[in-house]
């Protein structure tokens, strides 16, 4: 039986592998740019799935609005800092990894 609550649980559980993938990428990838890529993308998608699941389980509309606001803020902050780190690394002549 599919209710809104179970759908939320499904979304939350689906968000967990993205976080684990982000951490594995941070640990295993060879240079700064690939690590930035793994960290910023995978974690934000995982957070988006968790927020989707929590919004499906939320009590009122105000909580849903706050959750979505948190996600937008995390997206802005993490993309801005990722861009800054990558540009600064390029300016410091740190070359991307080639095979």
């Amino acid at each position, binding site marked *: 039986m599919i209710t809104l609550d179970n759908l939320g649980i499904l979304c939350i559980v689906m968000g967990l592998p993205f976080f684990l993938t982000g951490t594995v990428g941070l640990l295993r990838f060879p240079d700064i740019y690939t690590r930035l890529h793994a960290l910023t993308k995978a974690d934000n998608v995982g957070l988006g799935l968790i*927020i989707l699941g929590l919004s499906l389980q939320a009590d009122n509309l105000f909580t849903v609005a706050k959750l979505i606001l948190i996600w937008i803020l995390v997206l802005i*902050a*993490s993309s801005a800092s990722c861009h800054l780190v990558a540009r600064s690394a390029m300016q*410091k002549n740190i070359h991307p990894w080639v095979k």
Partner: protein
Amino acid sequence: MSYLHISCALIILCSIAAGMIRILSGPTAADRMMAAQLFGTCGVAILLLLAKGMDTIVLLDIALVFALLAALATITFVRRAWHEQSGVPRR
């Protein structure tokens, strides 16, 4: 109290503890700082899950503060503290 949400938060906490290895063994300063950024994102997720799991809706405000201030440390790092090995090409 919800069993599922707290165990999901526990899994993300284990992922944070694994990300600490990158802080300890990062070759450049930027790697260490990126791991701190991972702590910020995962901390927001843990706070959201605990807000549902422990039935305290106040934690959403703390997650908002986290989301705003986790980027501040990275920006300060890039603007003011990153000056190692400038001009040295690195493979």
